[in-house]
């Protein structure tokens, strides 16, 4: 647990120091400090994960040493330690990109990114409904502030994002208040022993679900996402799509797989799963129609979250721990792939001077590395073997295929695969157009392009640890 707490507090300290340091610290040094802190946090998270892999059990920590119920409880299990590691890793990756690519970021990026890191770490570790509310708010405010980093044109999307985010948090908070009113407890573990499927609990859970789905941009509450994610600076978009939307998803998962009584969970399960299937197709079709690169990538987040939602819904319906593995594999694979997609999209936009997909004609020649990165990451979204996306899809498919009555769900997955292939290769095919090449405005930033490729290689590298990851996650099912 100590390692996890270190992994959590280092980025928070870093954020405070960077705010304290003020204008004297220039962007470069601030970046170096932030990256070093993320890396330290990464090391700590690695030790925490190793400890978990060895113990393979859940550690609960009552903060302040007070008895359970009175204290806020933190919880470390293989899942939360893996997410800690993933968060730190993404921050290091994107931090390095932000520091060394020509696109760069303003000085204010660094404290905000550290705040984001800290709040996500706090979220993964928390097992207290109200504490989760605060982490959710921290996450939301950080995300909004980071969107606004893109400058004046992003203020309006950022403001809309903030208002929606606040509404979502209030929905969640109202649900927490009702739950507390009903059961007199905020602790996830205690609540899981108490909850009953009465009307009030049902209402509270539904309100919270609506709020969380809005925050996580789950279909049909996803409409805010493309504007917010497509308008943010490149590095920020990568963090937002790769990490931020996963926070509320995590809470949703806790809520239904632990807090809610089993019969309620089984009732909501099919609803979530169907919504996920619709998200897969609807999000994919929107991505296919989008004329802009970044909007396409943003819509693909909506679509890909459909897989996660489907896994969650089926996990609840059948109470199958295997789905839990699929859910989190999707989250991690999507995070890495999406980081590359946004970074590559941003780099290509900057180099080619266009936001339109049609401007990518000839990109395989003009910006080969970035385009290759885009295609490789896209392959994981489609779920081509042996990428991380494939691992997740494989695990998801197994229970769907083993019983003939579940085959319609598998058909949904097949449909999702085809739609994602369609929008990814829409971009890739245009980039091979040699007849009407769109010449670059500036010389490509080699460092930036290669750094954009890195997460994509990682997601394909997940294959090497596939068996291990699946065992690890299967061990932490609740």
């Amino acid at each position, binding site marked *: 647990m100590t390692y996890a707490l270190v992994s959590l507090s280092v980025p928070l300290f870093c954020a405070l120091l960077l705010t304290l340091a003020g204008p004297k610290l220039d962007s470069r040094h601030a970046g170096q400090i932030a990256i070093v802190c993320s890396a330290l946090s990464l090391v700590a998270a690695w030790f925490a994960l190793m400890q978990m892999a060895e113990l393979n059990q859940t550690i609960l920590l009552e903060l302040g040493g007070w008895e359970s119920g009175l204290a806020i409880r933190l919880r470390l299990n293989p899942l939360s330690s893996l997410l800690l590691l993933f968060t730190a890793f993404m921050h290091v990756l994107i931090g390095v990109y932000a520091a060394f690519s020509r696109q760069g970021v303003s000085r204010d990026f660094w404290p905000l990114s550290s705040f984001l890191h800290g709040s996500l770490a706090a979220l993964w570790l928390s097992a207290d409904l109200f504490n989760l509310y605060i982490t959710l708010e921290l996450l939301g405010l950080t995300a909004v502030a980071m969107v606004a980093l893109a400058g004046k044109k992003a203020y309006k999307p950022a403001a809309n994002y903030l208002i929606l985010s606040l509404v979502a948090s209030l929905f969640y908070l109202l649900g927490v208040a009702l739950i507390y009113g009903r059961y007199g407890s905020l602790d996830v573990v205690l609540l899981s022993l108490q909850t009953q499927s009465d009307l009030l609990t049902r209402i509270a859970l539904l309100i919270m679900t609506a709020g969380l789905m809005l925050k996580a941009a789950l279909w049909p509450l996803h409409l805010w996402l493309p504007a917010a994610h497509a308008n943010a600076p490149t590095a920020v978009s990568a963090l937002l799509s790769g990490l931020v939307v996963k926070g509320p998803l995590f809470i949703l998962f806790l809520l239904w797989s632990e807090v809610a009584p089993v019969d309620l969970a089984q009732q909501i399960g099919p609803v979530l799963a169907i919504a996920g299937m619709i998200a897969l197709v609807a999000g994919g079709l929107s991505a296919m129609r989008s004329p802009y690169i970044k909007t396409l990538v943003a819509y693909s987040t909506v679509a890909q979250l459909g897989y996660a939602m489907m896994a969650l819904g089926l996990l609840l319906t059948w109470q199958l721990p295997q789905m839990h593995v699929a859910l989190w594999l999707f989250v991690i694979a999507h995070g890495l792939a999406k980081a590359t997609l946004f970074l590559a999209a941003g780099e290509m936009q900057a180099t080619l001077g266009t936001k339109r997909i049609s401007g990518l004609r000839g990109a395989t020649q003009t910006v080969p590395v970035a385009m290759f990165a885009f295609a490789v990451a896209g392959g994981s979204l489609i779920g081509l073997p042996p990428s991380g996306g494939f691992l997740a899809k494989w695990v998801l498919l197994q229970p769907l*295929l083993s019983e003939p009555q579940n085959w319609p769900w598998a058909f949904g997955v097949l449909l999702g695969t085809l739609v994602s292939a369609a929008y990814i290769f829409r971009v890739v095919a245009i980039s091979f157009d040699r007849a009407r090449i769109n010449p670059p405005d500036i010389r490509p930033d080699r460092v930036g392009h290669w750094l954009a490729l890195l997460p994509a290689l990682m997601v394909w590298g997940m294959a090497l640890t596939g068996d291990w990851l699946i065992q690890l996650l299967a061990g932490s099912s609740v």
Partner: protein
Amino acid sequence: MSALLTWTSALPVLIILSSLIPGLLIFATPEHARTRRTVLNLTGIVVKLILVGLMLRGVSQGLEFRFELNFLPLAPLVLHGDALSLQFITLSSILWLATTIYAIGYLEGSPLRSRFFGYFSLCVSATVGLALAGNLVTFLLFYELLTLSTFPLVVHRGTPAALRAGRVYLAYTLGGGALLLMGIALLHALIATPDFVPGGYLLQHIDNYSLGFQVAFVLMIAGLGVKAALIPLHSWLPQAMVAPAPVSALLHAVAVVKAGAFGIIRVVYDVYGVEASTLLSLTQPLLWLAAATMIYASVRALQQQDIKRRLAFSTVSQVSYITLGVALAGPVAAVGAIVHLVHQGLMKVTLFFCAGNFAETLGIHKVQEMDGLGKRMPWTMAAFSVGALGMIGVPPIAGFISKMYLGMGALEVDQPWVVLVLAGSALLNAAYFLPLLYRGWFGKPPAKGWKEDNFYGQRFETHWMLLIPALFTAVLSILVGVFAGSIFSPLGWSELIVSREFVQ
């Protein structure tokens, strides 16, 4: 990863790496560094041929080549060199040599050659990996990699027509890949993914999951049928002919379509097994499908006026011979199917080389323009004739051997109507190939002269790098026919495979 990495487990990996590493290095080679690129290419090929030779010797002595890596639960990545994989690997390695030389000549002076050869090597690696795949999951992995690495080659020219063809190609092959994935995942969900076994591994579970097995078979055959160009999934192939000639030659005549056919062989023989496939009544529909494809594609070929498109439809028809032989589910037909994998490859690659030579040298793309070609380009025309006659089934060229075995196989399993189909197909082959030969040898050259005439007055009738590979494969097509009786001929090797496959 297995702790003991002996040479027998390393060899399959090395065979893949011998083209993968040069491929990656070629990507990093600057465009103008022609020599460096050529050296990389040739080094890779030579190393690969040596390694394949080693493995050939090993397998004929009964050595086991197996490499395993953890991947999915109960489905590791397995590379396994057995007799059947070697049949395919040897074919693709030798043809890789010929095609690379051809491509160097063909693409001389054109842009983006590093990209081209990089992807070309990746394709060969994927093909070899697919041949070495020791279970279905590994097969799927390389099958998809093959799709991905061929796509840039199909759209290499970057023209609107190429892009259109590329999109069609992707739509078909990725769709097929998704179906294949579903089928493999379904089988895995039922009984996990063990290694390929001669005779299959399904028989013992057949009572519990017959519906699941049938659905999985349909999904997998549909997925593989896309690449094997079974109707109605074949229409990507003629469109993909916009690609440069070496791509059409190696990939569409050999690697890609054969990957599909090879997959069908694996599924029927090494996953389901002949007995289980017959019990589940799966082979008969496949047989009808293959027969229909043969006839339909031959008729379509007859209608084509573009040489490459005619050859493409001929490929569709000829690859179905393999499926047909598999679906007949008898040992003699199996020999015919497996040997045709090699024979069709040699002959078809010859034909495509020659078609490319005609286009490059004289700008000839249409059948009508072939009049009198034999006078200007006698060597190429001769090679073309060998390929075409072989396709029709004229002895002693390779095609005759495979057709004979297929016919005998049909009679052996008591399906005499198949012989009629074979004969009909042979007649149709003759109908669409003989006019080409007639025009080439006996037609009159155009009075106005050729549309263009490159390499005129040089030592050879065309660039030597274009001519030599065509002659090389033509000679090979004759040799494997003539020496079919030897143990190291494709036929001898196929009999070895089948004897292991059908041993009860």
